[in-house]
């Protein structure tokens, strides 16, 4: 029985996913060869990858597959202000904007915000809130920099220090806006609510303050927490113009002073 030639197999694989290509190596020797070919991995690499790697690393890659693997590790780009990464199984792009890359109101004021080099940060600097009554954090990214046809979620990477205060009284507002589209506003508390406090609040306020609609920060695996700012979709490749995505968290309605959050950045990653 005639089998498909290697070029055909490579062509077929290029229409599947990186995950399929990795696991299909055991089908047959032809598959293994085809699965290693540059033709296939060129298709899986994000468009514009050559521009990215030339600015961040000067390594010579022996194959596109190797390059793909390299991009699966986080790569610092844009003068260390952003992190670029592709998900190994799907080939989708993830970005992390550093705190320096965001616009944080009053972050240049020493008395309100403090910048420092933290060992637990993924960047060279993270910023800590000392005190403010006006908390406003905004990040921007172009849809063209991300993978097309994908649902993305934006997450604020943060930590709450021991001496934090004023964070759990009033929930913050979060929203994401793409281009000229509308923005859907969600709310989230800035810190996880204390059980005792929750109980007291329920006693005093009864059903008036329903916590259901308001989220809390979620613990991540890397020692940080994240607050979901919102989600958005990227359109088809090339079809629409590059749109600007604005992601924001504000807590300006409570008049209390707050302090003690550390911001590492905003992560934009594909949603399952």
């Amino acid at each position, binding site marked *: *029985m005639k089998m*498909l030639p290697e070029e055909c197999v490579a062509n077929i694989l*290029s229409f599947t996913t990186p995950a399929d290509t990795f*696991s299909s190596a*055991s089908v047959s020797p032809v598959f293994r060869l085809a699965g290693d070919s540059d033709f296939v991995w060129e298709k899986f690499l994000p468009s514009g990858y050559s521009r990215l790697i030339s600015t961040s690393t000067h390594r010579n890659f022996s194959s596109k597959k190797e390059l793909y693997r390299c991009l699966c590790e986080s790569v610092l780009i844009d003068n260390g202000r952003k992190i670029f990464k592709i998900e190994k199984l799907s080939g989708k792009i993830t970005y992390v904007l550093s705190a320096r890359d965001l616009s944080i109101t009053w972050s240049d004021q020493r008395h309100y915000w403090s910048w420092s080099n933290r060992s637990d940060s993924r960047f060279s600097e993270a910023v800590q809130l000392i005190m403010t009554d006006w908390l406003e954090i905004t990040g921007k990214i172009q849809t063209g920099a991300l993978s097309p046809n994908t649902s993305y979620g934006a997450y604020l990477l943060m930590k709450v220090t021991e001496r934090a205060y004023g964070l759990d009284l009033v929930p913050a507002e979060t929203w994401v806006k793409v281009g000229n589209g509308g923005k859907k506003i969600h709310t989230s508390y800035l810190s996880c609510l204390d059980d005792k406090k929750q109980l007291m609040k329920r006693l005093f306020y009864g059903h008036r303050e329903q916590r259901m609609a308001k989220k809390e920060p979620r613990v991540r695996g890397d020692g940080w927490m994240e607050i979901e700012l919102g989600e958005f979709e990227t359109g088809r490749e090339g079809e629409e113009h590059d749109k600007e995505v604005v992601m924001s968290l504000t807590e300006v309605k409570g008049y209390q002073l707050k302090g003690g959050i550390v911001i590492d950045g905003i992560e934009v990653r594909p949603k399952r």
Partner: protein
Amino acid sequence: MHCATCSKNKLLFALSWIQMMQSYIWLKTADGSIHRVEKEIVIFFPMICQEVVCKGVGTSKNHPISLPQQVNQATLSLILDYCRFHLVHGRSNKERKTYDQKFIRMDTTMLRELASAADSLQLKPLVDLTCRTLGRSTEGKTPEEIREILNFPDDLSHLTDEERLLPLKNTMDDPGIRLLNRLNAKKRKELKEGERLQNVEVEEHVDERSVDDLVSFINGGDAKVVKTSKGKKKNKKKKDQKIVSSNEKEGAEETGSITREVEVPNLPSTEDDIFTPKAGSEDGDSDDEMDPAMKEMLDR
């Protein structure tokens, strides 16, 4: 006189004019059958164009163009249908897309043959269409399922026994591949046992010597063969069992692009694999294997 040459020239001219105006090309498929095809449909196929223009083949029934062996009657007619549709100008993209969706509905055997045929004729749009469909049908499937869909035999027969059992790279930590590697590792060990017993010429007998005896034997003389028989089953601590990796690469022919990493399996072993020298093979290696293995025995 004048009239004769004049009319001869006219005749010649007429003949070549007729030939140029030939609107059919003759093709022969692998099974020997000959087909007459409209010229405008196939003339842009790279190989057909070359045959007609450069070699002058294909313009008559007696000199048909031989198509590559991947193209049989059925696939040829499918290809011609496809080309006939798409070569018509003025069709909208939507029409073409709808046609493609309908066209591609066939069983996978046919799809495979069509992909092969289109590939041999270098018809990129059709190759892409068929491969995209095949890709969609293999997405997310296990290797076994893929083998079935694309009709690949479980064919590692061009490799030697040993090579077939070498572990596959498992970068995605696919459980199927993990299991395959484990099974292969076990088989490798069994094969090694079998081979060693065949090669060793000394009579097989149960090794009754104590640990100390064995140690002194080994340290005293040649650090060579201390054999155990297959019947003896020592239960070892599984953790740090090191299997010979260098010997396994013997006789393996590998093409440049196939690389294999040798895993250290973590299986509990019911067979005794401490000493793995082969009589007649590199003794230098035996020394290396001996030491860690000896240490383990002594640790007990």
